[in-house]
């Protein structure tokens, strides 16, 4: 293995490849910041360019684009509450409030360091555990995935404080209902489309997230006569963009990062689970682990609440490379595009990849890490300038948020029906937000809806309609017991606090 790592390092550290990672990180960050254009689009755009290079260089460029786009997505989440990709939704829960308090630079710095640390930990896990974890990931069956989705939904506990549990559950059901619109994945039967062709493919994630977060946030600001730049006006531009993280906050991150990286990496390894579930789970887990004082800060700019999902989503990104490289199974849409590129280079991923093409296997792993180092070096000095977006006057900032949201939707489908649908959902979401109905549970349920139905279908069909699959397998039972424990613990804590 040491020999492989050295081969990988020597390939990744050539001047040409370092330059490629830098270019990739830079373009990835810009593309990731544009709503609607996530890592998958960014990598897909790079494929034609990479065919001019050798496989290792091409993949190194794509790894840079990947990490850059994930970081870019976090930036728009934190500054504008406009997460362009599912993996960065949880980042906005505490990142956006922190930025609103005039600490935009600090929020971006916490995100950058957490991403880097998450990536570092997961690169270490990847080095030592990749081959054995691929076998574990294959042992997961539909009932386990279904149980995992239920566990993912327990993250809503984080939004159900102050007697809002029923409101959060109603939003979960609404999210699942929205996810059920469109063709059934197995039979192709259309559901809830009301003969409207535009709904046949269902409602896109970006549309729902832009409507419920970015657009509804902009409308709420106008409706409530708030000023999102008020806090930024109270502090100097230097303070707004300051990337200094004080000792107390660093201490919190030291605890959060290792545990979130483990959960992120393990979830990332599972095909189909990915960064979204990882970030929500890490957020929910972190909220359960911190003390009561810190728990009160969640959703209001908590350092732990920002660091946990950022660490987990980056760790999950690395984790998703495990099934792709070792089994040839892409764990996410992004790795599916990368798998296509690998096949285009004539490289067949699978258990023998690191025996037949060690320089590619190890240079991908090494370049991913170097990509993260370069991303940090490139982006930290830029944060003070990026944070100044919040110093833009409200009369310009709100229309620009609306512009990026609507454009993000339009470039995805070139269909004005999606714009109307987005406006409709945003108006309903704005009204619901006025009465403290939380939006994150809706988004989480919307993301998990399709996967939940798919795995419940398989489980029920395999068990011939019996619900015994829930306790037939030890793994399923363990996940469900963990879920039950979290729910009971949460109810107990709420009850205790009330008393």
């Amino acid at each position, binding site marked *: 293995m040491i020999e492989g790592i050295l081969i990988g390092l020597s390939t990744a550290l050539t001047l040409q490849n370092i330059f490629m990672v830098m270019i990739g990180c830079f373009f990835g960050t810009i593309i990731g910041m544009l709503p609607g254009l996530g890592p998958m689009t960014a990598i897909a755009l790079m494929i034609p360019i990479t065919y001019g290079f050798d496989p290792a260089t091409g993949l190194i460029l794509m790894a840079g684009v990947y990490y850059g786009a994930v970081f870019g997505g976090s930036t728009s989440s934190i500054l504008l509450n406009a997460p362009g990709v599912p993996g960065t939704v949880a980042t906005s829960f505490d990142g956006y409030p922190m930025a609103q308090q005039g600490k935009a630079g600090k929020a971006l710095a916490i995100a950058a360091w957490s991403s880097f640390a998450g990536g570092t930990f997961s690169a270490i896990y990847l080095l030592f555990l990749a081959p054995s974890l691929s076998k574990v990931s294959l042992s997961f069956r539909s009932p386990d995935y279904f149980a995992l989705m239920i566990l993912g939904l327990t993250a809503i506990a984080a939004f159900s404080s102050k007697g809002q549990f029923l409101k959060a559950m109603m939003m979960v059901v609404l999210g699942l209902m929205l996810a059920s619109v469109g063709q059934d994945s197995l*039979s192709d039967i259309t559901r809830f489309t009301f003969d409207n062709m535009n709904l046949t493919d269902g409602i896109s994630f970006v549309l729902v997230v832009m409507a419920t977060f970015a657009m509804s946030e902009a409308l709420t600001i106008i409706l409530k006569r708030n000023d999102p730049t008020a806090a930024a006006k109270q502090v100097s531009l230097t303070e707004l963009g300051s990337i200094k993280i004080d000792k107390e906050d660093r201490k919190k991150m030291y605890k959060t990062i290792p545990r979130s990286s483990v959960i992120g990496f393990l979830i990332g390894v599972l095909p189909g689970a990915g960064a979204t579930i990882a970030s929500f789970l890490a957020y929910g887990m972190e909220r359960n682990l911190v003390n009561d004082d810190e728990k009160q800060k969640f959703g209001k700019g908590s350092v732990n609440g920002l660091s946990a999902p950022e660490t987990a989503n980056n760790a999950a990104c690395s984790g998703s490379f495990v099934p792709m490289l070792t089994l040839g199974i892409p764990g996410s849409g992004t790795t599916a595009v990368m798998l296509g590129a690998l096949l285009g280079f004539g490289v067949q991923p699978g258990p023998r990849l690191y025996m037949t093409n060690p320089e590619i296997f190890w240079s991908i792993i090494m370049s991913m890490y170097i990509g993260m180092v370069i991303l940090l070096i490139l982006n930290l000095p830029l944060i003070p300038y990026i944070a100044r977006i919040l110093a833009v006057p409200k009369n310009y900032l709100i229309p620009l948020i609306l512009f990026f949201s609507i454009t993000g939707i339009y470039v995805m489908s070139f269909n004005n029906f999606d714009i109307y649908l987005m406006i409709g959902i945003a108006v309903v979401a704005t009204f619901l937000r006025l009465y403290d109905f939380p939006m994150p549970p809706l988004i989480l349920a919307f993301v998990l809806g399709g996967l939940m139905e798919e795995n419940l279908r398989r489980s029920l069909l395999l068990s011939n309609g019996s619900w015994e699959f829930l306790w037939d397998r030890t793994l399923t039972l363990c996940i469900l017991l963990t879920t039950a424990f979290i729910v009971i613990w949460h109810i107990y804590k709420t009850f205790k606090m009330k008393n």
Partner: protein
Amino acid sequence: MNINTTKIISLLFFIFSVFYLYTAYQIQVFAFDENAPFNAKTFPIYLGYAGLFFSGLKLILPDPETVKVEHRNLEYKKTSILIIIAIIYGATILKIGYFLTTSFFLFGSYYFLGERRWILMFLLSFPFVAAFMYLLHGVLEIYLRDPFLQFIGVMG
């Protein structure tokens, strides 16, 4: 009877769940799938009942922390104008094209939000959209349909 808005929202959600459940039962599945343990309408039916259950609970249980919204303090006029501008944007984008509609959308939004610095408003609409369009269309090669720019010969 004094009923708060959260309860009204819960009631609306309850009615919506009834409608959703009714529609779920109307989903036509293949004949061979009708008695299968799981078909296209199974999950939506569960969801419909879950919606009834949670909104029903919210309706009947006491609401300890009622949210009070001062409607007099809300800015309905500007919000409605922004929504109308966005709807007009959706209605015209395919006919007129991305450049003009987006530029007018931004310019109009700045104006109705109270901005009057005309030069800055202009710079942050027309040239800004042109630069953004160049990034999407020219650099990233994402095709943007624009009949107006095609008509004046700027786009092929």
